[in-house]
């Protein structure tokens, strides 16, 4: 076993936590460095909880739930926050939706009031639905349709999954949002945006001992919702290589390789993520050195793992330099992954990854907004908020043998999705 380095022990994130009778879990992190506070709610609902004919609902609610409540007029939600000198936003993925405000610490109660209003009786009127539908349409166009290589995730997901709801992107599809009735929206809200499906995090310049009383004041009256039924679909292993060509409005070809990987929180996830870092984190990473610097085949390389609650994906993506065909680029990518399968990663290279992770861990927890998000994620997906402090340790325990094993097990050329992005004008 590796000794846990000093930084990791010092970096343990202090918190207290408690539950309300309605099932709301509350985590408090005290930090008086700056007179600000982050108030956030993570709802355990994402695009994988959607009906196959209502794709994009969770993300749509990310927009809708800013519209107001019984006590907050349309458009007033953000006004309250900005008038108080705060910022607010939200984000959604396959598994959860996260809403947050960062406020001056004397405005903590405002944050609690806003989040409790959102949970208790969000207001959604037809005008709001219609406007946000247009906004989401533009979001889709801006991020996915009018961007070179913007459709990658959509194209990968639909080939990497056949039965699991991860097959559709979080942004969803406009035809489903258009087809949805008001009742569909109400049902979704009543089912998922309930205290027993949420965790509230308060991080910053607050007194932990006062929090229970304050939180109860705003949240205790919110009734518990029904038990949530989680999606049960189990995606069978990819047993072959799915290969395709996508023609896009681009000049330079690109290669995308997607491998199915274990769920977030499993031991192998950390090894897989480490492997991706070995490939593309930092200038001395393997893909950067071999493909960009030495062979000069690539303009850009990146390898990422998606930390999903159910088995997710690792995606390697490279854009070819001028004049380099996609086939040649792909061969070079394959060679690097083969190397990890065939040879043990030298210890110094592994130490380098660990040094990078150590820095990243400290940086990632140096702002109250980051701490709030990490605590909420650890509670929702890793079995408890205390696991936020153990993330680094789990990475540090990965061995060269682990890296080789996961490379063999998950990064197989016979079970993956490979896409070649080619310029439209090369379409036959």
């Amino acid at each position, binding site marked *: 076993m590796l000794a846990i380095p000093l*930084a990791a022990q*010092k970096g343990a994130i202090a918190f207290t936590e408690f539950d309300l009778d309605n099932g709301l879990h509350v985590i408090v992190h005290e930090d008086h460095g*700056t*007179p600000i506070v982050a108030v956030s709610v993570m709802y355990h609902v994402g695009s994988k909880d959607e009906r196959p004919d209502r794709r994009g609902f969770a993300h749509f609610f990310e927009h809708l739930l800013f519209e107001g409540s*019984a*006590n907050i007029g349309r*458009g007033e939600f*953000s*006004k309250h926050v*900005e*008038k108080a*000198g*705060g*910022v607010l936003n939200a984000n959604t993925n396959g598994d959860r939706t996260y809403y947050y405000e*960062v*406020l*001056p610490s*004397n405005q*903590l*109660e*405002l944050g*609690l*009031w806003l989040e409790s*209003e959102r949970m208790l*009786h*969000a*207001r959604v009127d*037809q005008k709001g639905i*219609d406007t946000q539908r*247009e*906004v989401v*349409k*533009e979001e889709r*166009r*801006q991020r996915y349709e*009018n*961007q070179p290589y913007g459709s990658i995730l959509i194209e990968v997901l639909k080939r990497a999954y056949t039965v699991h709801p991860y097959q559709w992107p979080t942004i969803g599809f406009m035809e489903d949002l258009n087809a949805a009735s*008001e009742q569909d*929206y*109400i049902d979704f809200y*009543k089912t998922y945006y309930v205290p027993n499906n949420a965790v509230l995090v308060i991080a910053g310049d607050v007194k932990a001992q006062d929090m229970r009383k304050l939180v109860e004041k705003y949240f205790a*009256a919110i*009734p518990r919702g029904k038990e949530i039924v989680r999606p049960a679909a189990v995606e069978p292993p990819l047993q072959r290589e799915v290969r395709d060509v996508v023609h896009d*409005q681009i*000049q330079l070809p690109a290669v995308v390789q997607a491998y199915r990987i274990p769920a977030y929180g499993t031991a192998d996830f950390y090894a897989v993520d480490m492997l991706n870092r070995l490939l593309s*984190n930092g200038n*001395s*990473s393997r893909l*950067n*050195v071999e493909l960009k*610097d030495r062979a*000069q085949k690539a303009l850009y390389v990146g390898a990422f793992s998606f930390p999903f609650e159910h088995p997710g994906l690792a995606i390697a993506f490279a854009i070819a330099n001028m004049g380099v065909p996609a086939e040649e680029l792909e061969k070079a990518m394959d060679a690097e992954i083969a190397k990890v399968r065939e040879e043990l990663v030298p210890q110094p290279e592994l130490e*380098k990854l*660990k040094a990078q*992770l150590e*820095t990243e861990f*400290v940086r990632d927890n*140096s*702002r*109250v907004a980051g701490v709030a998000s990490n605590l909420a994620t650890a509670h929702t997906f890793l079995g408890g908020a205390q696991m936020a402090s153990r993330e680094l340790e789990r990475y540090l325990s990965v061995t060269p043998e682990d890296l080789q094993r996961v490379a063999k097990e998950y990064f197989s050329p016979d079970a993956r999705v490979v896409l070649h992005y080619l310029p439209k004008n090369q379409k036959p």
Partner: protein
Amino acid sequence: MAGLLLAAFTHCLPMNAQVDRSKPPRPAPAPAVNVGQHTTFLLDNGMRVILVEDHQQPLVSVQVRFDIEPVLQGDRTGYIDLMGEVLATGTAAMDKETLDRTVDQLGGDLSTSSDGVYASCLKKNFNALFDVVQAVVTTPTFPEAEFEKARKRMLSGLQSRKDDPDGIADVVGRVLTFSKGYPYGEIPTENSVGKVERKHLEAYYKRFFRPEKAYLVLVGDLTEQEARLAAEKRFGLWRPVPLSATLDANGHEVIDGLGPVVRPTKTPKPSRVRRVAMVDRPGAPQSVVRVVFPVDLKPNDPMALAGQVMNTVLGGGVFNARLMQNLREDKGYTYGAYSSLDADRYCGHFSAGASVRTEVTDSAANEMVFELEHMRLNGVKPDELALAKSFMAGSFARSLEDPRTVARFALNTYLYDLPKDHYATYLKRLDTVSAASVMAAAERFLHPDHAAILVVGDMERVGNKLVPLSFERGVLQLDENGDPYREELGPVPAGVTPQTVLEAYFKAIGGREAVEGVRSVKRSMSSTMMGMPVTVTEWNAEPDRYALEVRSGTMLLQQVRCDGTRAKRYGPEGAEEIIEMELEEMEMNAPPFPELHYAKMGRLVLPGTVQINGEQAYKLMVMTDMGSTFSEYYSVASGLKLRREEMKATPEGTMKVSSDWKDYRAVKGVLFPHLIVQKGPVDMSLSVTEVLVNGASDAKYFAVD
């Protein structure tokens, strides 16, 4: 259904007397916001060290920043950016791989730019990383091989930018804001990057990376003593290369390896009148719209803060800003609309922008211009002012969570010549910004009538609609480098001339003899205008008679008659005589086949070939003796005419009008198009229901009363 209230639960709630949910809770007393302190001292060589201690996290960052005045790069534009990129690819002691590995093994980050280096890591690794920073700053070698790689990457990047609408908008927006004659408006192109040599990078580095022009900014878990020792050790002995102050005949400084370096003499000014420019992206689902102009605003301007408050209300940072509320929340045109007002030591600028769906491009651009005008004329309301000020005060407090903010404040104070207490008094000064001072800032900094409006989108679908926004009454088409657009045409094979193209056309539609035999034609067409079915009838007769009727049912909407001498247009508002150029053009185009007479109209040119709807076509330009020009496109394979295109003067300005000719069918041995798709000023599709060749003389239709 009226407002849907998701309040299904509330009726069964226990009464909770303590909470009045109807109003937002009152804030507790405001916490004090303390701007942290910095320490500063000079090294013997003139390098200024700024230290901000912060011991909350075991992190340290270091920045070396050089104070460099902008210079023009001219036909080698790109070399300064390349210098910044190649800077960390080799030092006296390390090649690129060693350097990269060293940084990564320390778990650190190191990045370089054309004005310095930034690095950060955990405290325990700081000394080693600082050594690397020192080597990069004082002994870079600019290896030839790394230079070539960086240049290749830059060229690939330029290539891929062609399909990135935001990237195009950024670059062309800069050209429109500052012009290419100012450093901020210079754009690297394939051509200019091709002219850069390694020695240019090194020469620039040697001239401008000098200790007496440098700031060394240290932030984090360091004591003052540690910082002093570390700084002295790395940079205390760094001595600058002596400057040779040679000037050329024009008074430009001559730099070894670079030659004369030109500094801008004039600061960009907003354009005389509002202009509209487009970069064409056929088929784009969205248009990137920008409204830009240069602004005379330096960071130490007494009105700078009022300007920022004004911009916050207009479109900066807050969700409740007017542009966001108008274009996104009210109209649903976009995912986000923003504006920025950037103060700069040399030349500030304003930009408002959004990505909007293609159909609403002109409406969105209009709304943006409206918001600028509205702000100038009417200023801000008290609640907007209060929100913007609170938000800015909150942002200021939040930014202090990062100790680098305090260091940035200190650095700015030196760079921008700000009062020593500029940031210490920020909140107090912000508090005193009034509606009147915001109004004054809007008047001074917003120039909607002198803006450049840039649209990166589908020109065919939106170009004409943008004409009314331009005071020049036309849309300027630019390429992705911000230069005037020039159509890329394929070569014309030897032996092909305007005459052979026209003869091939006559042959394709039935032969010259048959075409010359057509003395008059009556065409009936059906279409829709503003959702209403209409019938259009057109008469053409040799040599110069023409008539047109547009009807909806039995109602006559419009009529044109030309008897070869005079012409009149009849509409619901009465009759109007058509005269001069318009009359001449009408007569010229009156014959059933005016192509027979092109040779007599003026000069014919065949500049090249181009794709029209996926078909290779010859472009034929007719420059008439009257001074007008139109273009036609003839299929290389079939000889048929595929499109006619011209610029037409309209009451709103000059617009492009094009008609695609499709579905050719024979009538009395001659092929006539049976589907005409017209674009601009009104888009319509005309399907031909009947063609009557050499029918009974319809003299009455041409008669002008």
